[in-house]
């Protein structure tokens, strides 16, 4: 038996000097090899997360206070508004990027609004829809496997492909909807993807089509894992279907619910592919992720400005993340 287990079994009384001695001995038992292994196992992930997450994130924050077109170096001089932009490259711009984004970048506020609409639709429509599908399929209705595959199919397609598939449904000249309602080609055709009042909702329908399947499969897995004796007990206690679900099954699935909540928030904040495929995220389909990309990736990069938009997206993402972490840690403390 190793000294480690022995320590655990025979808990030393408080203030016992022997206990402290044992603990010291336990550390001494970590050989050099152990220490190297621990250092490597902790060090590699630490370095990776520094190199690929923390340093880029902090650099983005720093860059958001500069003007830089991606060529040459940065310097500590303040930008001079009297100079042409090409001579002002790499200068410190203060909060000007944020100010510009909020005041005279027409795409900014629509993008923020669309990100929130996206989140709202996922929370209020896609997730409940996925849950409903899962609950219905869990009842083992006839052909449930077929429905399951049909609903899950969109999840297996890449979002880029989904954008292309729905193009055939929405196109005003040869699209399915306009053809069915007899409005294809003419001037009375409905411009589903071009009209800025319609296109966000049209794209959200595509996104929901996929997201509901995603939520369904996660939820279905959760439902299958619920102990059937709970249902039986609820049945014996005289609970009806609704009561059984909301009072017994739903609370038991708390871990799955949290996973789904996190996925919903992440999926809606990282929304990008569908709008980019549809029209590069312009004219009614602006999203913060698209604005970041269109400013940073490109021939003439506005790296500072794009970084400022990235920081805004980061701040928005921090809200649900901190709420989630706060909730999780509070629960752990209680237990």
């Amino acid at each position, binding site marked *: 038996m190793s000294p480690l287990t022995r320590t655990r079994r025979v808990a030393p009384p408080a203030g016992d000097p022997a206990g402290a001695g044992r603990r010291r001995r336990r550390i001494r038992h970590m050989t050099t090899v152990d220490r190297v292994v621990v250092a490597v196992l902790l060090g590699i992930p630490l370095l990776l997360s520094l190199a690929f997450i923390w340093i880029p994130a902090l650099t983005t924050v720093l860059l958001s206070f500069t003007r830089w077109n991606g060529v*040459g170096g940065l310097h500590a001089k303040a930008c001079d508004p009297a100079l042409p932009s090409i001579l002002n490259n790499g200068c410190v711009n203060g909060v000007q990027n944020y100010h510009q984004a909020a005041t005279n970048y027409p795409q900014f506020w629509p993008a923020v609004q669309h990100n929130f609409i996206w989140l709202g639709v996922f929370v209020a429509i896609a997730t409940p829809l996925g849950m409903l599908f899962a609950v219905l399929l869990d009842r083992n209705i006839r052909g449930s496997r077929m429905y399951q595959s049909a609903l899950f199919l969109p999840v297996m397609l890449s979002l880029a492909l989904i954008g292309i598939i729905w193009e055939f449904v929405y196109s005003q000249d040869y699209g399915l909807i306009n053809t069915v309602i007899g409005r294809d080609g003419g001037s009375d055709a409905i411009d589903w993807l071009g009209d800025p009042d319609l296109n966000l909702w049209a794209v959200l329908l595509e996104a929901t089509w996929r997201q509901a399947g995603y939520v369904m499969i996660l939820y279905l897995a959760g439902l299958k894992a619920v102990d059937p004796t709970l249902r039986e007990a609820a049945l014996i206690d005289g609970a009806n279907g609704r009561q059984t679900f909301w009072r017994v099954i739903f609370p038991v699935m708390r871990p799955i619910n949290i996973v789904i909540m996190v996925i919903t928030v992440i999926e809606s904040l990282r929304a990008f592919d569908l709008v980019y495929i549809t029209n590069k995220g312009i004219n009614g389909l602006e999203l913060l992720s698209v604005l970041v990309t269109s400013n940073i990736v490109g021939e003439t990069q506005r790296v500072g400005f794009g970084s400022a938009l990235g920081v805004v997206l980061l701040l928005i993402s921090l809200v649900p993340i901190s709420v989630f972490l706060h909730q999780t840690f509070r629960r752990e403390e209680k237990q």
Partner: protein
Amino acid sequence: MSVVDRPDSVVGSPTRRTLLRGVGGAGLTVAAGGLLAACGDSEPESGKSSGPVAGSTVTFGSNYSDPATRTAFAALTDSAAGATKTKIKINTVDHNSFQQNITSYLQGTPDDLFTWFAGYRMQYFAAQGLAEPIDDVWEKIGGNFNDVAKKLSTGLDGRKYLVPLYNYPWVVFYSRSLFKKNGYTVPTTWDAYMALCKKMKSDGLIPIAFGDKDGWPALGTFDILNMRLNGYDYHVKLLKHEVPWTDQGVYSVFQHWAEMMPYVQSGANGRVWQDAAKALESRKAGMMFQGTNQVAAQFVSDKADLDDLDFFPFPAINPKWGQDFMDAPTDGFMLSKKAKNSSGAKAVLEYIGTGEAEAEYLKTDQWDVGLAQGVNVPTYNAIQKKSAAEIGKCKAVAQFMDRDADPAMATAMISVIQKFIDDPATSGIAALQKSAENQARAIYT
């Protein structure tokens, strides 16, 4: 790690610091730049070499990624390799990725030569110190080009940076048979153009086919209206922000556009230009204003009746300018600042700047036209012959808004113009102009 660097650090010598800066800048873009930069194999030493040309290898970064242009480009480089006795290694990258990564590509380990565009877009990269001037090449090929082509190849510092290959005009396409059947005549003035549109509409046609889902096609309409109304110099000044966007000249551009809008295919913001071209092919639409590189190329790939396709230059509006100007975007080649084999690359450029080389390229390309004077291309079709003639008549050619302006400004104008297309009321023009001006101030200063 410090992001703030001394201003004296130079682009030419990538150090660990510049590399780290690259990582920082790419923080949110998932290091997209690495894609191209990784193609090279080692650091360039001095950027200049004076070794023998024959037998040396010249690397060529190419965005000619479509099958047809790729074949034409291969024919061009094969004959260039034969003429200069060099080996040419082509590194083809999808043209969108090429354009998006150009900045990091040119700062990393670029190929000796790379494909690029004339106009402000070329001047911008030359001014950043990413391209090598090629005045010595132009001393030899200068006689092959006219003044327009020379101007298009000159940077802001007055030195030459580009060897042009071909260009293509932006004109009004129409179907010959449809015009004949309905007795339409080619309009040369704005009034005749509007009258023709009205006639077509009453005949049940879509007068002007239009698709602007990608955002950029409408920029061409802005360009031509501005050049017809205010002239070439005004247009270029506006795009360099030497004239404010709130100017009356811009107002009259949108005003004329608003007059045209009732005849333009509706729902343009939701239609790609290829679908608009299909309306022209099927003779549902009477006319379409776009580049031959797009419309004629679409007819070729759809195997539509190319012989029935004809075009005319956009009608005159202001008699002062007549039909003197048009958009004719020019593509060509530049020498990287960090080229490893610059003497070999210059020899290749000298060859490409000849009519013979252009003719070799245009054997496979059915929609562009060569720029060299007196270039003899026996394979030209009717569209190409007419393109060359019409470009030749122009007093100046613009390069298209995203090549004549800072691309960030062109992007801003895409959304301004799409808003206009959604609601082309003259009452909204002033607000759009103000938005454009505010964004121009942020971009150009």
